[in-house]
């Protein structure tokens, strides 16, 4: 089972990111479970969302305490929130940032990827300049860095799940896919974890 935690601020679309990525995994034959941190969401306040993907139906019905991977939609959360809490060693931490991955080496023994999702969002007219919607761009970067889910599945999920600006959002995801920066620090290679199983859908 793959467990992913999203960190964002209320209004940035962390919950939608979790849902869209769940649908992308679903299209690749996974059983999925996507949920927000259960609570009262306030605009601008730190929020979380969660995603489980497995090749068997997901029966675990508790919060994710030890994620395999973490996605950070807003770099100002680092320091304000313990974004690596419980993150498994060698897990991916994908950050929306203009900085290179090694700027975040201090976070610990994790695989860091960065993408400037904010500029990609603004370039594609997603949200406003002061409040860009970065959730779709970051998913394209997730696809490339982790190799867990294909970019075509992400683009398809974006088209299915979003109400407006489907083309712009899908384009942002593809641009982030090409622009994401990361270095593989563990022995785990990209292709090892990149598997697809379309036979598991039937029940």
């Amino acid at each position, binding site marked *: 089972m793959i467990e992913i935690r999203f960190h964002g601020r209320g209004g940035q679309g962390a919950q939608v990111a979790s849902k869209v990525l769940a649908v992308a995994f679903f299209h690749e034959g996974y059983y*999925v479970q996507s*949920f927000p941190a*259960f609570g009262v969401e306030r605009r601008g306040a730190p929020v979380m969302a969660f995603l489980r993907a497995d090749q068997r139906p997901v029966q*675990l019905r508790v919060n994710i305490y030890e994620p395999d991977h973490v996605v950070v939609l807003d770099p100002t959360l680092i320091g304000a929130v313990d974004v690596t809490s419980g993150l498994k060693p060698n897990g991916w931490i994908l950050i929306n940032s203009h900085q290179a991955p090694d700027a975040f080496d201090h976070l610990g023994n994790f695989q860091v990827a960065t993408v400037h999702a904010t500029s990609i969002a603004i370039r594609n007219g997603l949200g406003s300049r002061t409040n860009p919607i970065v959730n779709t761009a970051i998913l394209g970067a997730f696809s490339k860095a982790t190799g867990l889910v294909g970019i075509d599945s992400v683009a398809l999920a974006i088209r299915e799940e979003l109400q407006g600006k489907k083309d712009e959002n899908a384009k942002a995801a593809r641009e982030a896919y090409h622009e994401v920066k990361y270095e593989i620090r563990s022995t785990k290679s990209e292709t090892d974890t990149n598997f697809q199983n379309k036979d598991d859908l039937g029940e």
Partner: protein
Amino acid sequence: MRRVITGNQAVAYGVILSRVDVISAYPITPQTTIVEELSELIGSGRLNTRFLKVESEHSAMAALIGASTGGVRCFTATSSQGLAYMHEMLHWASGARLPIVLVNVNRALAPPWNIWSDQSDSLSQRDTGWIQLYCENNQEVLDTILQAYRIAEAVRLPVMVVLDAYVLSHTSEPVEIPTMEEADSFLPPYRPEHPLHTGQPEAFSMIATPEHFMEFRYKMQKAMEQVPAIAKTVDEEFRSRFGRGYGSIERYGEGEAEVLLITSGTVTSTSRIVIQRLMERGVSVAGIKVKRFRPFPSEEIYEEIRGAKKVAVIDRNLSAGVGGIFAQELRASLYSKEERPQVFGFVSGLGGRDITPELIEEAIRCTIEHHRPEEEILWLGLKR
């Protein structure tokens, strides 16, 4: 069609597929997105249903009592304080023998304010004469709504379909959505036995003196007693059409287990993982999921637990002064039986606290290690 949807969306699909005629609801907290989804569908013309936006949950149910008396299929959804406010009208709906279906998203009752999962809201309505069905996942939520109308209209009693707040209501997971044609073939249009019609005048909601009142309640009880058999038939037909069925209870795990764990709602899902792990380590344990709370499936449960030495019940609810309500119902149903296993009543997860695999294992271990419960209420995951 298989889609990744929330529990609230699963409810909306269930309502659409049931061809509900009238929806009445009060649209603010503690209401969930169920009514939002449905009103959007109606507003955009994709759902041909009359939507009544009323000023309170009490009025929501009152409006449905009127509509259902008129002979149409009715629906509403609520939660916690909203359900409590509806209380008087819940009695009226069942007493008037109206087959209304209500979805309640289980949330704690305030104070202190809490919008998280807790069964105390629906269970505090247990004596209102409503059938109560609890769901474990979003697929079961959708399927149960279709089944609920069949059961309600057959026995002429209202049904409350219950799902855990957030853990289902706001959680997205894959759900198989039947087609309209498939749903139609399972759930035919509602044909009221006593329609409100000027050509066929009858008296409704009149006074019943002591000479007659008791017989109304006797008939209501008899209708409740028909539920197990009718629900079984409906579930079997559903299974034959859709390949999915639920039963009033479901047993899983070891066949001849010495210890049994009884749960309802989403705690069951996590319990399945724990019981599987314990069995792999050689522990003699099995689980029972209770889907139907009213009428309580006493006989079905007894058949499964009569050979066991001990039964652990995890209740995500509290009747202050007594303890967990499922445990209380189980103890009462066992009193007249020959074989009475020890009942360990655990209370856990109130107000949405996670009931983790570790806590479930702790409950099972405690039950195995003790001859009898040391306390009437065994608090699980409590900060002391």
